[in-house]
């Protein structure tokens, strides 16, 4: 939204492709306007949401905003392929900003595929979009700030949160007071969420992780425990808690598939979003027409994303104006840009502190047992991944060709980072190249592909 606002202000014709039905993405997700009810976020966060959505609303009639539009492929020639309704369209813009955000990082453990186990962000999306609770009694677990926020919001929405298990204490961030100072307003929101948890009497378990989800057909209980560096449960620490919702978040993985598909150079950053497009300070990738803003280019959080959207929007607008194919042109200054650069700089320091809380030890992947599903789409078990590794298939492509993780519906978005970690754990091979990115980023029917509109060639 921020990039579109800035590029519009600079006189560009802007098209926004939004996979969702309404603008806002995950952080500022909007419910259906017909739905009544309150939101569960802190008032300051809701004020930020209102402000950005309001600014976007002012330009939305001047731009080509497409809801429910799925960008399913990007190519090195600058084409973006998108599904809208029952057809498809090929766009050929002068510059493209990818603001595709992140998905949550799954770490498989026995029982994690039981209905009732979901990502913390997924549970939050249900709260935001449907204003309804995804469970009656919840356990929330993981690392970083999201489990705290979600546990608190679930409490406010009427779910009983039986326990909040954190990999490390939230107080661990106090080790970086300098960075914290820059995010003091966000810390204040965190304190607000913490207060809700205290008032609701939510049990806090520090150093505990889910090691097994139990239930027949649906989640009935979860075992939380401390694990050692080998992934073994520390004796005497197992706590079994009855619940019908387990909301887990272990950090995030950037949605970088379109950048990789287009041929942008990709780097590897295990806790910072895994495979990320290389970008300069203006968000420009190795392809002169392709930009990445916000978490797509590495975990930064919502506040950095908003200011960075402005910065990248300005750079993309400049790329359109100058049509310079190689060198990075100078972006004309503006008040909005100056402010955005200052805001990004301030919150980036805070984001670095938060990032530290998202790192996870590889031992967590050792909680999976041989019969734990690693790839949900193709139902590939840990024993099968290990068998492939043992017969010498070490690269992601080779493991995929043998056991099919990553060949299913989601294209490996859910499992490939795990396969890479497992290759490191069980065969001692460093996670190599990202699996060859291919169309489609999302499935599209033959009928829609056959009804394809192509932008007129220039």
């Amino acid at each position, binding site marked *: 939204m921020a990039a579109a606002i800035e590029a519009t202000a600079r006189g560009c014709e802007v098209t926004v492709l939004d996979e969702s039905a309404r603008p806002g993405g995950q952080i500022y997700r909007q419910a259906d306007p017909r739905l009544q009810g309150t939101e569960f976020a802190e008032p300051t966060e809701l004020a930020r949401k209102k402000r950005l959505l309001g600014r976007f609303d002012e330009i939305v009639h001047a731009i080509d905003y497409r809801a429910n539009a799925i960008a399913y492929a990007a190519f090195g020639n600058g084409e973006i392929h998108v599904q809208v309704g029952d057809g498809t369209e090929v766009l050929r813009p002068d510059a493209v900003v990818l603001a595709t955000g992140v998905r949550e990082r799954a770490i498989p453990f026995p029982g994690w595929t039981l209905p009732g186990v979901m990502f913390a962000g997924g549970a939050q999306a249900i709260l935001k979009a449907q204003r309804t609770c995804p469970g009656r009694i919840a356990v929330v677990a993981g690392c970083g700030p999201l489990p705290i926020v979600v546990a608190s919001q679930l409490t406010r929405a009427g779910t009983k949160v039986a326990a909040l298990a954190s990999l490390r204490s939230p107080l661990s961030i106090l080790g970086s007071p300098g960075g914290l100072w820059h995010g003091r307003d966000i810390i204040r929101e965190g304190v607000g969420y913490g207060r809700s948890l205290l008032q609701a009497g939510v049990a806090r378990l520090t150093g505990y992780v889910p090691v097994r989800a139990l239930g027949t057909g649906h989640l009935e209980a979860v075992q939380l425990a401390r694990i050692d560096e080998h992934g073994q449960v520390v004796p005497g620490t197992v706590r079994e808690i009855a619940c019908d919702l387990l909301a887990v978040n272990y950090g995030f993985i950037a949605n970088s598939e379109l950048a990789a598909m287009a041929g942008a150079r990709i780097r590897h950053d295990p806790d910072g979003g895994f495979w990320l497009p290389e970008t300069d300070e203006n968000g420009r990738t190795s392809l002169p027409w392709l930009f990445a803003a916000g978490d797509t280019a590495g975990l930064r959080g919502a506040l950095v994303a908003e200011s960075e959207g402005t910065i990248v929007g300005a750079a993309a607008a400049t790329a359109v104006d100058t049509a310079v194919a190689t060198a990075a042109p100078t972006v004309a200054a503006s008040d909005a840009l100056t402010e955005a650069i200052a805001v990004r700089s301030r919150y980036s320091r805070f984001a670095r502190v938060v990032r530290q809380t998202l790192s996870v030890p590889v031992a967590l992947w050792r909680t999976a047992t041989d019969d734990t599903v690693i790839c949900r789409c193709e139902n590939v078990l840990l024993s099968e991944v290990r068998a492939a590794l043992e017969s010498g298939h070490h690269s992601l492509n080779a493991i995929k060709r043998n056991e099919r993780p990553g060949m299913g519906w989601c294209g490996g978005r859910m499992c490939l980072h795990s396969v890479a970690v497992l290759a490191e754990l069980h065969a001692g091979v460093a996670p190599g190249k990202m699996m060859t990115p291919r169309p489609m980023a999302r499935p599209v029917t*033959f009928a829609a*592909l056959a009804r394809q509109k192509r932008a007129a060639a220039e």
Partner: protein
Amino acid sequence: MSAVTTDVLVIGAGFYGLSSAWSMTRLRSGARIMVVDHGEFASGASGRNGAGFRMQWGLDLNILLCKESTAFFENAAELLDYPRGIELKQDGYLVLAHSQKALDKLNASIAIQHRYQVPSELLDADACVEMVPSLGRNRLVGGTYCARDGSASPFRLLDALLVASRREGVDVRYGTRVERIDQRDGVFIATIRDATIEAERVLLCTDWAVPQLLEPLGVELPVTSLPKEAIVTVPCTPRVKPILISLEHKISVNQLARGSIVFVPTRAREGSTVESTSDFLGWAAPKVVDLLPGVADVPVLRTWGCVSSITPDMQPILGETPIEKLYVAVSSFRGFMTCPAVGRMLADLVVNGVSDDPVLAQLTPSRFKAGNTIIEPLLNQE
């Protein structure tokens, strides 16, 4: 520079390379066999094909190659001691004609197939649609069907050949690119970055890329490449029981046991890239919907690229080059379905130095100099 020696060096660990190497071990000649491949497991054309096999051809030699290979596929798990199996699926193969001319070709071919006891039959358009209700009737005039044709997993077959070869002592090395081949004192020297492999005999199984290693040796082979792209859908209800090819649409269709449907359309292109092209799906989707309106609602999951070898007569090239003890194997886009037979024949030729196989005699590299052309009528290729 380190040097290793072997008796037979096979370059290329695809179907032809691994099948030949494994077949060599069956001859119990005691020869040391090494297979090198520049990529990783199944990274070349062998891991990128449509996975179908058929005995429905119009040329004796193709029928013979595929008949022998089909019998192998039916017993592969046992022959290769690979309990997991190769995901064999024999739900038949339907070759479709959308013009009288194509139907005439099918009619002529079926007579030859029956000479070799291939259980194929001629169907009219109604019978085709009855067999595959998702088929469209646009221009459809009929087809031929053989129930013993089918598909298997290329990955499983390749892994089975790899495991069986290694078990028999074949030294298979991936990530090993042969940069050039020299010959000194009757020994071949293959250069690999900072190492060499010395071999008495060399079998080149790099398919469309064989000219790269042959040309510096002064050997010219008329082999070019055709890049293709394939489509796989999300798993869906059973809609296409037999494998289909349409001679006119130039598409093959294979619904796998897990429900996803693989389409391999062919269009005229040049080069040797496996990259996805931006206009492919927009070009292919209308053809798919015309051929099979009943799959229009199925979502496409992914596409991938592959490269086929093309020869002047669209037939494989198998045999000894003008350089003694240097052999080539070029599949001409049917390496998967012919590899058991081709591997057996080549193993015989390479290890024993001679072969009296009549099929091999028709596919020698020297046939182009002699001006012999053999035409296969049942191709769905450009």
